[in-house]
């Protein structure tokens, strides 16, 4: 950040002056924000709710019924559309922009001699993000939190910030490759278990006496199948817990949160890391900052959607619907469809982003773009707000809607929250420089209360 350049014509002269005096790295100011990045982030942020809402208000046992039931219900079609077009892509876009934001944060700041280095600020910021993630999971009670993971994985990204896009793409592909490898390892293990089971059953049919190993193999597979189908005892227990007060849900979620933070990090890091690398690469290429030609965006749209949507559809039909009968699925396929998951995600992410960029360029709906960029600018606040709202709507200490709405009705809630966040962000940013949680986060990072109110004479 060039502190000597005149910042007087922006609407934050006072803040800039304050920063000039202290002459230290400081938050990215409004003037330097790239609006398109905010727009995409806003869409990703709103889209994430679309993927998260079942986690908030729908017990997983419902999927079993949905997938094995008739396919022309509103519920099924909703699931089909969401899974085909959006699943994983909003998270993907969010990861991509996190990668881009990392580059923005670290490379836009000038080092001050002898002062706290940008690297230190960066790592402090991420450490706070990890804590916010823990807060979101354990206190706000959202077990699907991603902040924890982003905080930790952001720490991995730092040494790659100056890498050329070409190599970042290679890294992203390597990460996808590791993800695929892990999926294959897991799937092979499962199919080995299935084979052992099938053999044991065949032996049983031909009236042979089962060896100990065969009996074990048989029961092991049956256990897997049993875990796939919901058990009413446990479903009812879960529902009862979700309908109770804060304390009960808090303790109910502790092992769940611990488990997801542990294993999500250990096994799921590749899922996020690959997208972050791609995001850094795309940002380096100017893709997110509106610097690429319209024809490139159009190509991105065509290729992304053209390949991504069919793959997504196949993935849903096979990987979801057919795989709900796990035994038959494992018998039929040597390679599971899920290996395509990240490829599909990447393609659709590029498709979504291209589409957005094209809409932005065409200036059809400038007001919507502005609103979306507002949402994106306070993405952190909006993300936590979604946790607060949804837990209050669905959990027992709020309006107790947990598992009361059918699948498609969940999306009414989504739309309502979207509208609220679009309006709220726009109003808030008229008066303040950052969203409230952004302000807390920044103040903690710089260990100093940040100016928050906008200077009105600038407007």
């Amino acid at each position, binding site marked *: 950040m060039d502190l000597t350049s005149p910042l007087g014509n922006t609407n934050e002269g006072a803040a800039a002056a304050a920063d000039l005096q202290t002459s230290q790295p400081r938050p990215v100011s409004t003037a330097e924000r790239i609006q398109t990045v905010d727009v995409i982030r806003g869409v990703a942020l709103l889209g994430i709710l679309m993927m998260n809402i079942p986690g908030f208000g729908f017990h997983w046992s419902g999927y079993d019924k949905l997938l094995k039931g008739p396919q022309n219900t509103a519920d099924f079609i909703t699931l089909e559309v969401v899974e085909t077009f959006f699943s994983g892509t909003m998270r993907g876009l969010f990861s991509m922009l996190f990668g881009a934001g990392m580059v923005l944060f670290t490379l836009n700041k000038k080092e001050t001699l002898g002062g706290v280095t940008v690297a230190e600020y960066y790592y402090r910021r991420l450490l706070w993000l990890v804590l916010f993630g823990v807060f979101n999971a354990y206190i706000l009670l959202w077990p699907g939190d991603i902040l924890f993971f982003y905080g930790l994985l952001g720490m991995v990204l730092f040494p790659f910030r100056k890498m050329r896009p070409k190599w970042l793409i290679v890294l992203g592909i390597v990460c996808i490759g590791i993800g695929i490898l892990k999926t294959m390892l897991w799937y092979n293990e499962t199919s080995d278990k299935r084979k052992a089971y099938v053999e044991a059953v065949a032996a049983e049919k031909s009236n042979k006496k089962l060896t100990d190993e065969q009996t074990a193999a048989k029961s092991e597979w049956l256990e897997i199948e049993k875990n796939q189908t919901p058990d009413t*005892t446990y479903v009812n*227990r879960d529902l009862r817990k979700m309908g109770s007060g804060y304390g009960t849900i808090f303790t109910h979620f502790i092992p769940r949160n611990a488990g997801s933070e*542990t294993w999500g990090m250990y096994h799921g890091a590749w899922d996020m890391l690959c997208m972050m690398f791609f995001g850094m690469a795309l940002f380096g290429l100017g893709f997110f900052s509106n610097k690429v030609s319209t024809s490139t965006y159009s190509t991105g749209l065509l290729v992304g959607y053209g390949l991504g949507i069919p793959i997504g559809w196949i993935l849903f039909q096979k990987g979801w619907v057919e795989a709900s009968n796990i035994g038959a699925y494992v018998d039929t396929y040597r390679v599971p469809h899920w290996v395509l998951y990240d490829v599909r995600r990447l393609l659709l992410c590029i498709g979504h982003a291209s589409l957005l960029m094209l809409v932005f360029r065409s200036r059809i709906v400038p007001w919507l773009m502005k609103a979306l960029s507002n949402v994106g600018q306070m993405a952190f606040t909006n993300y936590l707000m979604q946790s607060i709202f949804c837990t209050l709507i669905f959990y027992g200490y709020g309006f107790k809607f947990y598992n009361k709405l059918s699948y498609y009705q969940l999306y009414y809630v989504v739309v309502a929250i979207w509208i609220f966040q679009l309006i709220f962000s726009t109003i808030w940013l008229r008066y303040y420089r950052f969203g409230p949680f952004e302000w807390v986060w920044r103040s903690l990072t710089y260990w100093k209360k940040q100016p928050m109110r906008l200077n009105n004479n600038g407007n």
Partner: protein
Amino acid sequence: MTISFPEGSKYFISFQSNYCILKCFLNLPPKKRHMIPPISEVPPHGTQPAISDPSPAYPPINSPRIPSLDVLRGIAILAALFVSIWIFGGFSSNQQTGILLRSKGLNYRLFGTVDLLLDGKMKAIIAIVFGAGMIIFMSKQPQSRFSLADLFIRRQMWLILFGLINAIVFLWTGDFLFHLGIMGILLFPFVRLSKRGLLIASLIALFIFCGKNYWKYADDRKAYNKYLAVTTIEKKIKKDSTDNAKKDSLLKAQKKDGLPAGQKADSLSGKSKTDTLTKQQKNDKSAWEGKVNGMKYDAKKDDGEKKAMRSTSYGKLWNHVLPTTQFKEASWTYQTGVWDFAAMILLGMGLFKLGFFTSQFSRLKYLWIGIAGLTAGLLLGWFRLHHNQLTLQDYANYIDHHWIPYTFFFPFEMAFMAVGYASVILLVLGAGPLSGLWRGFAYVGKMALTIYLMQSIICTLFFTGFGMGYYGRLSQFQLYIIAGEICLFQIAFSMLWLRRYYYGPAEWLLRCLMYRTWLPNKKNKPAITESTVTIQS
């Protein structure tokens, strides 16, 4: 928040005599020479004064080191093997349980001693020295085109990878390089904290670690209470069913006397309602029973493990070991490891800033810290062992009578003893030149990474079926002899190696990866260093 350096380190003088500084000095281009600060202004504790030129392709070969840190690291890395050998060699926790329950005999005393003196403390010293090293690293003058933060984070990430290789390829489930790598990154923003801040942070981490131990115990207690509840229900059911049976026989007798059949049906339906436990209750019951059974000593318990570890196929071994490794790297890290390492690393950082490692304290102070640390640590250790025995004898009874688990003070035990040991060693070392065996330890400490990885390779080859298959075949006593032999070999090896090379092979590789160039490692006659520094790769 500023980094505070200990002033006037005694070691500084000995660094001056170390001609490496002179070497750097000689090899700098003349126009840069004016940038070299006069000797008296050089920051203490071994930063490189001469290199303020940010452009050299790679750093000078010999950065001055703090010998006491090398000695500590060397001793700790060797002594830690005497505990690791339990896992390497198949001295299982089941066998330890057996020994603790017998609570007499040579085996018991041997185990108790090693457990008291070494278990966890050596790892703690390594982490403490690692923390001190972090501060040294971050207060160097930048010497290459990379910033210190870049170098540091990159080093940590390679360490994580080294740890993964150590765990997944060399099959060492107890690896801690992975954890040191991660913790270095997590604690990177703490480097700038004041000494007081660091010590407080360390204390907080220690308390959380204690808390974690307590919460685990509280969970056990909850499981036990649930079990008790279920067993009372069970008893009641049993009583009811016997009552019902009595009633039934009574009814039958009455029926014979011609009473209406309706009553009988009632009692039967009542019986069928209550005579089984619900699924949840059964789970509660088996959860506790499983826990208690898991703690019991059983001579045959290790047979499966022994067979698996003696399997001659690497693939099978790999598959067998993987879940343990993953548990250590994921669950253990998340639940305990973070606090364990954070406490010690922060402590090391704080102590370094206090001047502890650079002989800033008076001899008396070292003596007192040593005595106090070791005494307190041993007392807590004695408490732990004693309560561990009680736990193993009858966990239910222990839960009834104790509100804290035997592990409760373990974090403090480790911290106290680690600091105590360090203090005593620093006292003995004094500020003078190292002699004899101390030099040997310093050599080991200088190439600790290599030594650590080598331990895994040697032990995996010696104990698993892939190698010589001694897993579970040696007694505790024999295991310590093996560990001792390995240590002797490693001391000799590092002395020989460092005579010819600047760094241990793993250290050299790590540095090459860090700086992204091939660095010279072979030592030759002193003259050669000049040419190697001037040749830019």
